[in-house]
Each structure stands twice: as C-alpha cells, then as structure tokens.
C-alpha cells in the first residue's frame, strides 16, 4: 500500500442515510451491471424456450386441425408458453443471485450499510426485468422471423413487454423469496423443476376447452400459469382480448403481491441484524 497523506477519515457522513429510491437506484444499477456482464445467463433462458418452441411448432402443428382450435399457426399459439418459460428462468436467476450474495458474504456487506430491505428486493429485481426484456425481444424477433402472427399490432408489442416485465417481476420475486429462505444456489436450482410442473400442467400446449382429460382440464383451469400464457397468447392470435389480458395482468399482480410478501418475510428472517 502506498504511503500518502491521511485521507481516510470522512467525518460528517455517519448517519447521512440515503432514501429508499436512491438505494434502489444503486442496487438496481449493480443488478443490471451484473446481469449484462454475464451473457452466459441469457443462453439457457433463450435457447431452451426457443428450442421447445421449435419442437412444439413442428411436432404439434396438426393440433391446429382440431375443431375450434383458435388459430391456424401453432407457432403463434405456442409463443405464450415460450414467454412463460422465460419468466421461470427469471425466477431461477433472481433466486441464485441473492443466494450467491448470501453465500459469498455480499449480503452481509450490504447489511452493514443503512440498507432498507425493500430497496434490496426492488434493486435485485431490476436485473431480472432487464433479463426479461432482452428475452422478450429475442422471442418476438425469432418468432416473427419464422412466420408467427402478431395480431395486436405495434401497440400490442408494448403490452406484450409490459406483461412480460410484470410476469418476470412476479416470478423473480418468488425466486428471491426462495433464495432468501434457503441462502443456497443449489436449493434454488432444486425448486426449478417444480416450477416447470406448473408450466406443463397448464393450457400451454392446448386451449383449455380442447384438453380431453377431465383431470388435466381441471388442473389447467385452477393453475394460474394458464391465465398468464393465455394473456401472452391472445396478443399473438386474437389481437385485443380484454378478458384474457385482464386476467393475465390480475394473476401476474397477484403472484407479484404474493412473491413480494414471501420475499419480504424471508428477508426479515434472513436479516438478523439488530
């Protein structure tokens, strides 16, 4: 270490606490910087949903010939599932990020500042939102390039991204809750397959009224993920479907409220500081 003038003391800053929004700003900036500097994070969340989209679009295209199937393009129909899959990757990303901070001590570093818990949660979710946005753009561009329809037009794109961001935040907050509760990246990964069960027991592959098995139809009907998928899907195949979009936004908000409550509660348990 170099010798030099004594400059380390900065009297006057003790107790000069930052406001909530300023803290969110600093933490969001960190979260976004981290996300952008790890392009590898985007690989699974882009590759797997698009791969599944390709498989479904080619393998299940015959489903469009079913009576009352709502579109003649299975690619357009299947995009709802793709956007939802992306949100689930956001869940894992958010959970692993906070679990990593706990495991490596960065969480303690933040706890030793005048950190507000809500700012930590909001800041962490900023990176998730950016990831969700990049994914959304990629899914849309790839799908349109391969001939998917987008019936809602240019204004619908904004709604698509708004819904995508909201769903990303909602599931990201669930991921945060799991990460905060377990404090362990592997545990977060362990929960991931369970989230996929929700995806597959939904109306992702077929419209609910065309699902033949009664039990499956019943499960898909009570599964909130179905309504999120149907909201995304409506923009591609229907245009402006107020009911589908309304239900999707309401369910996303509900998941967000639950996720924030769970994350806040887990954070309270995790932050033992006096």
């Amino acid at each position, binding site marked *: *270490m170099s010798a030099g003038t004594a400059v380390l*003391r900065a*009297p006057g800053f003790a107790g000069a606490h930052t406001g909530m929004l300023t803290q969110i*700003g600093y*933490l969001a900036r960190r979260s976004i*910087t*981290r996300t952008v500097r790890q392009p590898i994070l985007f690989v699974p969340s882009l590759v797997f949903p698009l791969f599944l989209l390709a498989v479904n679009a080619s393998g299940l295209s015959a489903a469009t010939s079913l009576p009352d199937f709502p579109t003649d393009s299975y690619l357009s129909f299947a995009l709802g599932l793709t956007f939802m899959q992306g949100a689930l990757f956001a869940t894992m990303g958010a959970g692993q990020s906070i679990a990593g901070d706990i495991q490596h001590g960065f969480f*303690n570093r933040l706890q030793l500042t005048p950190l507000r818990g809500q700012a930590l949660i909001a800041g962490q979710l900023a990176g998730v939102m950016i990831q969700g946005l990049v994914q959304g753009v990629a899914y849309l561009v790839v799908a349109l390039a391969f001939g998917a329809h987008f019936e809602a037009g240019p204004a619908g794109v904004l709604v698509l991204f708004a819904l995508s961001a909201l769903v990303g935040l909602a599931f990201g907050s669930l991921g945060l809750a799991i990460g905060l509760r377990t404090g362990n990246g592997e545990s977060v990964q362990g929960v991931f397959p369970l989230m996929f069960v929700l995806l597959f027991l939904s109306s992702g592959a077929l419209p609910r009224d065309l699902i033949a098995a009664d039990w499956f139809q019943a499960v898909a009907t009570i599964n909130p993920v179905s309504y999120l998928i149907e909201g995304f899907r409506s923009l591609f195949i229907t245009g402006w479907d107020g009911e589908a979009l309304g239900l999707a936004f309401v369910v996303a908000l509900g998941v967000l409220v639950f996720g924030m409550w769970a994350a806040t509660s887990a954070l309270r348990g995790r932050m*033992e*500081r006096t």
Partner: protein
Amino acid sequence: MTEINGSEADNGIEVEGLVKQFKNGPRAVDGIEIIVAPGEIYGFLGPNGAGKSTTVHMLTTLLPPTAGTARVGGYDIVTQGPDVRDEIGVALQEAALDQYLTAREHMRLQAGMHGIPKAEALRRGDELIARVGLSDAADRKVGSYSGGMRRRLDLALALVHGPRILFLDEPTTGLDVQSRTALWDEVARLSAEEGVTVFLTTQYLEEADSLADRVGIIDTGKIVAEGTPDSLKEEIGRPTVEAAPLEEGDLERMRSVLSRFGSLERADRGHVAVRLDEGSADLADVVRALDSESINVQDLEIHAPTLDDVFLAKTGRRLEGAAKEADEAGDTGELEAVPA
C-alpha cells in the same frame, strides 16, 4: 467492568457478559468481557472455531447475542444497531466482493449506500483505491483480482464512510507475506495517525504479537488470557535457553549443568534446552557454569516466550494444534449453526 468515560467512550468497545448459544450447536461465545480503548489495536487471537467470528458478528450487529451486551462507539449493539453500523467499518473473514463489478463500482455502491454525495463518493473512492495501491486495477472486474488485492479493496470499502472503529476478521488469512505486511502497515497507520480503533481477529501469533496493542486469547468461547503481548508472555514467562556443545560427547554433561538452572524442555538434536527458573538473569550464570565445567559451546540461544506458550499455559494445547483439532472436527464455520 471498567467504564470508558466521556468522549473516549465514543471510540471504544465495551463488551459485557456476551453469550451466543446456537440452537443446534455449541455455546460459541460464553460470557466474554472485553474493553478496547479508543485508538487501540485489539488482537483477538484463537484457533478456528474458538468464537472469534461469532463475536465479531455480534459486535457488528449482524447477529443478536443470546445474552449480555456490548457498546460499540458508545452505542448498544442490541438496541442501537443502526447507530453502531454508522460508526464501524467491517471487513469480514471472506472478502465479500462482487466479481462482476470493478473496484471503482464497488466504491460507488458502498459510498452511495452510506449516503455520501456522488461527487464526494467519487473523490473518496479514488483516494482510498490509491491508498491501497489499486489505482491501476480500479476499472478491472474484481473477478480477476488476486487474494491480496481483494483484501485491500475490502479494507478500502470498510473505510469509505470514515468509520472510527474498524473490525477486521482474519484479514490476512491466505495472503502472501508481502500483502500481509502491507495490510499490517496500513492498519497500524490508521490507528496511529487517525485514531481509528481496530478490533482484529487472527489465528496468527505473529500478527497479534506485532500489530496488537493488547491481545485477548479466546478458546472454546471463553477468554483465557488478556493483556499486552509482552505482559502475557511475562506472565507465564520464563525464557528458554538452548545450547549445543562443540563436542558431541559433552551433551550429557551440558544437560547436567543446564538442569541446575531450570526444567529441561524438548530441544533439537544435539541441543539441550532449559526453561530458566530465574528468567534472563540466569543467563550469565549459565555461561559461567558451562565455562567452569570446560564445556566448549558451539551454539547458545535464548528464546523469549511466545503467545503460543501463553496459549499452551492457559489451555494445555498449542494454538497450532488447537486449530488443527478444530479443522478435523469440521468446526471452522462458527456461524453455520442455527441461532437459538
């Protein structure tokens, strides 16, 4: 417990009957009492699993104590946590850095969270980065830093808000000699020139001996000895004289002569070692006795007692051995048990 009075109390640490009992683990800290005077460097020495890190976590408000209390910078760690945190800088055992951020970005984040205005944060960040010798690497991601560079950045981050009390939890573990010495120099300077109180945990005898004004030795959650390094060594402390005869055949006669001056100790091959009953004062008599017996001396050394001797005297074990035992018992993660 002695009270620290007046303005001095603002910069000191007083610990009274502090206990941490983990639900599924041992009583990690068992009723310790410590006073650290303002501007003092207090070395908290002990093997892995002794309770050092748990104590630091309690004193820095990260972990609520099960019983007892402490005042840090004049504030109660249980009821005035936010005030305590304003007064302290902390570098915990593992340099907690974000490998995807640069040193400058870390500084900006840490300063921002402490409410330091942006312009001032940038100025102080650059000054601190320069002080710890990281200016050339300030815009490199921390993921590419060596262990020593991480430690130095960790120290700089702990200082960004100008704390008056600094907690360093095993700051030099795993560092090379050069990095260790540089960090010692900076810690000593902070205390001497800026009056920063330093609470430093270590398992290195040399670190406690050379850096700390006073040392507390902790073992299985209890403080077993406390004082200046010299006073602790003097307390147990008679020096050992170790000698080797020029002629190997004189070894037994040398042993017989030296044993008059104290108790025989283990010595290197071809040497005799004795802990002197009367301390260093005996040394001249030892030399005269060997001379009068016509034993030619090839080598003669006097060893002052070390803090390891203090640890041995207080616990019946060597510090190095105690650390190994704790490692073998998997007892290195003091804070992994569930708090009660």
